[in-house]
């Protein structure tokens, strides 16, 4: 085995096949090599990584290590990391050194992970292609001419190219699942409130959820175990006990009721993707799952609903970036208004501005009822659709994306086409449901993802279903040409 899954790496560390310092060095070398081609990271923290790895090695030696001790990790640059630049891939925060760690960062640090750096992303997580980053687009390791998806494009590309065994990510409308699908890796967006949002720079607070991108479902279970749980500093985090996700992985599929979403198999879906997804469904059926077609009539309204709610919240969340206390400030402001206008005009990119303006509009006097309030009502209807569906089935299945990864620059001139890329993923965010994307095949040489959506707090069930499928298939273990993971950290060469 040389797939460099998290489980494999953790086992290697436990067995002292290599030290965390050796492993860290190997990944850092790989990152250095990959940066010009992929641009997956915004910041590399080599020095602090090696220091953290040395501490992890001590813990591994003295027997106080946990399951993730010494495991290298990349954090999406939306998570605040103390003493390290936290940019949200925006010029606005290109000089921002966070004075504190996000709760998720703290928890993973306490679990012993070693941060290699910060992943590139769409600016303020607004985008589906990683092209809105101030630091330039991320390239898909499967084909450098295509996008990795977004907003967590850097995280997905990094894991696909095995620049780390795992990378944290966030998902507001599909930002974990869509890039995971487009890069052929596993991504989980937990239930809203399952993982703390404290220290995660807000885009749309009622939709944002932190999760992780890994090679396998087993890896995702191990990571989620460390990330999940109530945080008194996040009022929207939920105080529900965290189950043992790894223990649940072995749950048999016999009798699992899978619903396939009528609305996800209609017009616009690439037939090659449909084929892969239906094949995956057959694999679950062979494992004993039953299948039923389920309709969520209001689901087609999820894109317009999302593009009212998310910009509304974003327009308010991003008001704090005013050039007064931190972040970009324009040169020689004439007066206060000039300071605000130019700092924000210079600090934000076009897509962020578009959403701030959309959001400001939908919340304005005279438009609030027609847009924001109506969107909230539709959101409630979509919630209700899901609730009804989960009365009949245990989880819902469908494609993650309508197409495979598209070319860099192909959709940047048409925001609506870009937005429609999230047509299958947004529903889970609006309803706060846990959802995953796992690799299920290839179309035209590019990865295809199948999406699983479960009821609130059913992460264990989703992970078990994904794990059962991944035991039968190897799509998740395949690496892009040139990015094979058969490097040996213990050898002097490090990266191959």
């Amino acid at each position: 085995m040389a797939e460099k899954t998290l489980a494999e790496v953790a086992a290697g560390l436990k067995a002292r096949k290599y030290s965390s310092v050796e492993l860290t060095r190997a990944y850092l070398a790989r990152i250095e090599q990959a940066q010009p081609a992929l641009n997956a990271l915004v910041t590399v923290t080599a020095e602090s990584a090696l220091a953290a790895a040395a501490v992890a090695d001590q813990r591994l030696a003295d027997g106080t290590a946990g399951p993730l001790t010494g495991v290298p990790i990349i954090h999406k640059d939306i998570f605040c990391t103390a003493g390290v630049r936290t940019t949200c891939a925006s010029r606005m925060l290109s000089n921002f050194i966070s004075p504190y760690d996000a709760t998720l960062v703290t928890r993973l640090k306490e679990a012993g992970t070693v941060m290699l750096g910060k992943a590139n992303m769409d600016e303020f997580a607004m985008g589906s292609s990683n092209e809105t980053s101030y630091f330039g687009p991320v390239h898909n390791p499967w084909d450098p001419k295509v996008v990795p998806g977004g907003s967590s494009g850097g995280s997905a590309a990094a894991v696909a190219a095995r620049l780390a065994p795992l990378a944290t990510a966030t998902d507001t409308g599909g930002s974990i699942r869509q890039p995971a699908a487009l890069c052929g890796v596993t991504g989980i967006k937990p239930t809203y409130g399952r993982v703390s949002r404290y220290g995660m720079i807000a885009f749309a607070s009622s939709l944002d959820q932190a999760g992780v991108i890994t090679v396998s479902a087993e890896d995702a279970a191990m990571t989620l175990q460390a990330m999940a749980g109530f945080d008194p500093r996040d009022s929207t985090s939920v105080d529900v006990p965290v189950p043992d996700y790894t223990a649940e992985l072995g749950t048999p599929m016999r009798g699992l009721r899978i619903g396939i979403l009528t609305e996800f198999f209609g017009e616009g879906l690439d037939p090659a993707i449909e084929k892969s997804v239906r094949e995956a469904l057959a694999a679950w059926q062979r494992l004993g799952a039953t299948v039923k077609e389920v309709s969520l009539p209001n689901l087609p309204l999820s894109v317009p609903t999302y593009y009212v709610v998310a910009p509304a919240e974003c327009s308010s969340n991003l008001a704090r970036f005013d050039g007064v206390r931190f972040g970009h400030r324009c040169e020689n402001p004439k007066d206060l208004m000039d300071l605000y206008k130019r700092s924000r005009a210079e600090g934000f990119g076009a897509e962020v501005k578009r959403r701030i303006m959309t959001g400001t509009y939908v919340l304005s006097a005279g438009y609030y009822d027609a847009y924001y309030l109506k969107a909230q009502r539709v959101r409630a209807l979509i919630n209700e659709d899901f609730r009804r569906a989960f009365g009949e089935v245990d989880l819902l299945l469908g494609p993650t994306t309508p197409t495979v990864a598209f070319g860099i620059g192909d959709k940047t001139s048409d925001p609506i086409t870009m937005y429609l890329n999230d047509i299958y993923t947004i529903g889970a965010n609006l309803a706060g449901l846990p959802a995953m994307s796992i690799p299920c095949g290839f179309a035209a040489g590019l990865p295809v993802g199948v999406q699983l959506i479960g009821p609130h707090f059913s992460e264990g069930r989703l992970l078990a279903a994904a794990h059962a499928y991944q035991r039968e298939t190897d799509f998740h273990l395949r690496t892009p040409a040139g990015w094979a993971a058969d490097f040996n950290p213990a050898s002097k060469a490090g990266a191959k």
Partner: protein
Amino acid sequence: MSGEWETVIGLEIHAQLATKSKIFSGSPTAYGAEPNTQADLVDLGYPGVLPVLNAEAVRMAVKFGLAVGAVITRRSVFARKNYFYPDLPKGYQISQYELPIVARGSLDVVMEDGTVKTVGITRAHLEEDAGKSQHEGVGVSAIDLNRAGTPLIEIVSEPDMRSAKEAVAYMKKIHTLVRYLGICDGNMQEGSFRCDANVSIRRKGAEKFGTRAELKNLNSFRFVEKAINLEVMRQIDILESGGTVVQETRLYDSDKDETRSMRSKEEANDYRYFPDPDLLPVVLEERFIETVRGSLPELPDQKAARFQQQYGLSLYDAGVLTASKELAAYFEAVAALVPSDPKLAANWVMGDWSAALNKDGLDVAESRLSAAQLAGLLNRIVDNTISGKIAKEVFEAMWAEGLEADAVIASRGLRQITDTGAIEAEIDAIMAANPKQLADYRAGKDKLFGFFVGQVMKSTGGKANPAMLNDLLKKKLAP
């Protein structure tokens, strides 16, 4: 001319809640710290931080709501009020909009003439305060975020007040109430208690309200009264000269004693309120509300009613004496020691004693005389040792030197003459010395009775017991 107009006033009172920490962060709320030393990352609106509601602020707001007989909202919602200003770090203020924690209540206010004015309370909502901007000359402004995130309750009245006096009386009553409840220190200099006034005028008898102006920055009772009266005059001038009042926000400048326009309705911000997705709705259970109800102290109105009944006081006097917990407690301590005449205790506490406190700028707690000392004096009136008039002299000496009443009376020889013989002797002497007046009196000039009283008082140094003197003099002077 101005008699034809009716003034309509509604107040928005901001009371800072006396919590130890801020409404959404753990920073302390103490006043007067070095700038920006009491603001943490949440108060500074750093990227990624989140608000966590202070339960104590909720409890205090519920206390207020129960005290004004209001509806306590079982599920209230925090909303964001969006606008840009350097002392508003997040670019929005967390407030409550459509679903405030306290809905409809009312408050009875007793006016000086004893009439009772009922003022409707539309709502009271929780919100965070902004920081302070200090403009330090051209092009330089400093921001102090110590106050940012301090919990406030904004109490919005109905437009029920019809004069500046009523507005001040209502504001004073709210001030009394929040201090009774222990939810606000009421310190107006420090900005803990301040108000905006919505003022309009209309023709007497008109149904429709006139266009209102909102007066900002009213941080003393005196300013509220002055600013409202100024504004009413301004509006009358405009309307009587054929103009129209525009809806606008006006700032009261106490130095120049004028109001001036800050911004018109057209320039007003569209605050784009929407529910704050970082905070859950505040859901209050019946049990919690009942627990808070059980913790309420005796409220001003309850205390005033009891004072009327227990001590036989007028409604107005009971209102004055219950204006603060401390004053009420002082009065009750005095009254307990002068059980035969609580009305006397009330008059002295409201009169000479309050005047002395005011003159020296002291709080009740700083009184130079304890309740027992004042009661000691009053008991000498009750037992006829001294007259009320002499008592004033004794009181002054007590206040100045912190002495006991008996000591002052003894050392100054102020004991009242209650010996019939001694008073009769004085009367005889005065009658003998003033034969003309005596003759005139007996001839029917009744008014001269006062002359004789005065003469005897003068010759006794005011110590003759007034009632005895009256009786004896009547007998002696009778033809």
